[in-house]
């Protein structure tokens, strides 16, 4: 799956919501009130789960500290030989005139414009679907959700042929334009906006004479913020890891994102007199996933509070 997602939307409780509770009855305190003790067994089971999740990443970390020759001759899961992490990082950043840095900047461009743009379009569109009744609304919804089912490869070749007629292949637009559409972002904002932006507020603004866009930008966006952050998070991950479409659209490394560039380095071992650069592929991979992990950790705080706020709202 390479598509973004929505949170579950709110559950359908049978009891009406009440006014915000005081801190005595928040979820956490309530459990403490029941004297729920932490389960060691559960923790151990989850720890196994975590080992499963982190093992390959651990291998990546350990391998990036090894030199090329050490990589090929030592046991994968523990350190061996001279500590070469910083040498590897330097080599990765300077190899081939620093093309890795170029790829990094390309990826940043695609993420900022692509994910940013996708979030914005999803916000606009989801809001429109949630708060307005307009002709063709049902059709729009059906078409968008239906489009999700189409395999990426069905679209790859026609998109490629179309874009090459328009002269867009081998340019950043070939990557950015398709990444601007996030059907799940649309769906998420739509469900979120239904509750998060009370219609009374909109009506009040309309009565005050504010235009729809003004209302949107000054009032609604703020209310939608937690949902926006969630959509942003998932579109950022999706655009950062975008692989298949850039692989087809780009023929020259100038505009490669990191994923495609790494793949090319990996394939480079098979050339006449070519040097296998596994240590650079591995270090490059490590450098590729660090920013996205950081971004997630950073955005996570906002997203968490957004969900908590959502559970307490009137």
């Amino acid at each position, binding site marked *: 799956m390479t598509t973004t997602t929505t949170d579950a939307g709110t559950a359908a409780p049978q009891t009406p919501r009440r006014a915000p509770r005081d801190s005595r009855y928040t979820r956490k305190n309530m459990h403490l009130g029941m004297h729920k003790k932490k389960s060691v067994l559960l923790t151990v089971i989850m720890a196994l789960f975590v080992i499963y999740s982190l093992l390959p990443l651990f291998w990546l970390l350990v391998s990036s500290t090894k030199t090329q020759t050490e990589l*090929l001759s030592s046991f994968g899961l523990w350190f061996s030989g001279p500590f070469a992490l910083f040498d590897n990082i330097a080599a990765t950043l300077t190899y081939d005139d620093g093309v890795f840095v170029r790829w990094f900047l390309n990826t940043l461009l695609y993420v900022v414009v692509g994910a940013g743009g996708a979030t914005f379009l999803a916000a606009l569109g989801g809001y429109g679907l949630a708060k307005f009744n307009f002709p063709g609304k049902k059709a729009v919804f059906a078409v968008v959700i239906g489009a999700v089912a189409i395999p990426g490869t069905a679209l790859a070749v026609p998109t490629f042929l179309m874009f090459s007629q328009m002269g867009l292949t081998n340019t950043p637009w070939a990557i950015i334009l398709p990444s601007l559409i996030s059907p799940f972002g649309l769906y998420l904002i739509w469900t979120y906006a239904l509750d998060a932006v009370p219609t009374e507020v909109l009506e009040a603004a309309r009565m005050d004479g504010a235009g729809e866009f003004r209302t949107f930008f000054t009032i609604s966006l703020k209310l939608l913020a937690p949902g926006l952050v969630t959509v942003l998070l998932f579109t950022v991950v999706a655009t950062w890891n975008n692989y298949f479409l850039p692989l087809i659209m780009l023929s020259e490394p100038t505009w490669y994102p990191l994923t495609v560039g790494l793949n090319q380095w990996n394939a480079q071992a098979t050339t006449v007199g070519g040097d296998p650069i596994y240590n650079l592929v591995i270090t490059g991979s490590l450098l590729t996933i660090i920013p996205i992990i950081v971004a997630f950790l950073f955005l996570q705080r906002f997203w968490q509070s957004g969900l908590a706020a959502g559970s307490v709202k009137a």
Partner: protein
Amino acid sequence: MKTAHSSRGRFGRSAAVIGTGIALSIGLAACAPAAGGGAETGNADDIAAALEEKSEITVWAWAPAVEEIAASFEKEYPNVTVNVVNAGTGNDQYIKLQNAIKAGSGAPDVAQIEYYALPQFGLSDALVDLSDFGFDALEDKYTASTWGSVTLDGGVYALPQDSGPMALFYNKTVFDKWGIAVPTTWDEYIAAAQQLHAADPNAYITNDTGDAGFTTSMIWQAGGQPYTTTAQTNVTVDLQDEGSRKFADTWSQLTENDLVSPISSWSDEWYRGLADGTIATLAIGAWMPGNLTSGVPDAAGDWRVAKLPSYDGTPVNAENGGGGDAILKQSKNKLVAAGFLQYMNEGEGTQISLAAGGFPSTVSDLESDEFLNAEDPYFGGQKVNELLASSIEDVVPGWSYLPFQVYSNSIFNDTVGQSYAEKSDLNTGLQSWQDATVQYGNEQGFTVNK
């Protein structure tokens, strides 16, 4: 390792050059008739004139030496800018090339194309016939088999860059350890395989998970000629001819009996196996020394080269890999491209390729004393070039590839690969490969086996 090409980014420099190029050409166009760069044909003088003018070409190549060759070329012809782009290795690049050709734009001026893929591109009318520039006169400069690989239907579609006569690379340390003699026939090779694997169950005589290039080269060596093309679209495919069967019957003895390592070539594990001796030999093209030297430094001194074993003891050989460079019809700077092509594969570029570890296709290099007498420290001081060059004359003449070889190779593992996976007779796999290839050819409008 990569040599420093330029400290300025390629992108920035080409932007600057495009800018000045545009300004200049606007100026020039005002006072002179359209100059030679866009012309379709020309002789040596036309090429020389074109190289004096400001122009820019794009070269798609993955051979590392090409960047250095481009830099050296630009020093000699300062008005020309050569953008070397690594658009992928082998098949990855061919896909992009095909896409660009189909789309009608986006193709480079010059592209590196391996010999097995040349017929596909040549017959699809995407490459310039180099006779337009008089390059057909260069025939004598190259070995017969490489020249044969770049000529199709009377036209010359590429200049050979390197060649790959096969040889047997073996790990002498491993052989000595177990007292294995260097095999000269395939039967001896099979015996050596059994001996080695019995002595050390972790070691194998070689690795093989099924490789189309290897298989076609081996069929070539066995005297098979499974592919023939007449009148451009009449094709016959017979992967069960005498040579094919001879190879399959012999090689099946290895694959059916677990005598080859299940590691894929060019993988991480493969490099390890070559380093620690668990993969003891490679039957592969003459360009391998460069790869061993840079990719398997730990085994320096362990390896040697010998002639490829044959079926009856008399030396016979085939080419494996290697390729040339061609000019795309989409190019808007054909004369400049021709100039670069000649420099790269016939002029000074050949010396740069040689120094980078490539195995030449040019006769003068192959016969030079310096080349032949070079003692390679990686191979314990053995004069590997001498042996490799001498095996060129053993190459069986008359081989040709399909006009859709790239596709056919891509389904090799679907078909023959299953015989490997099931450890069954390779002939069944070859038959299956033939059937799929024939079906494809007919679907694409060729007349295959009819």
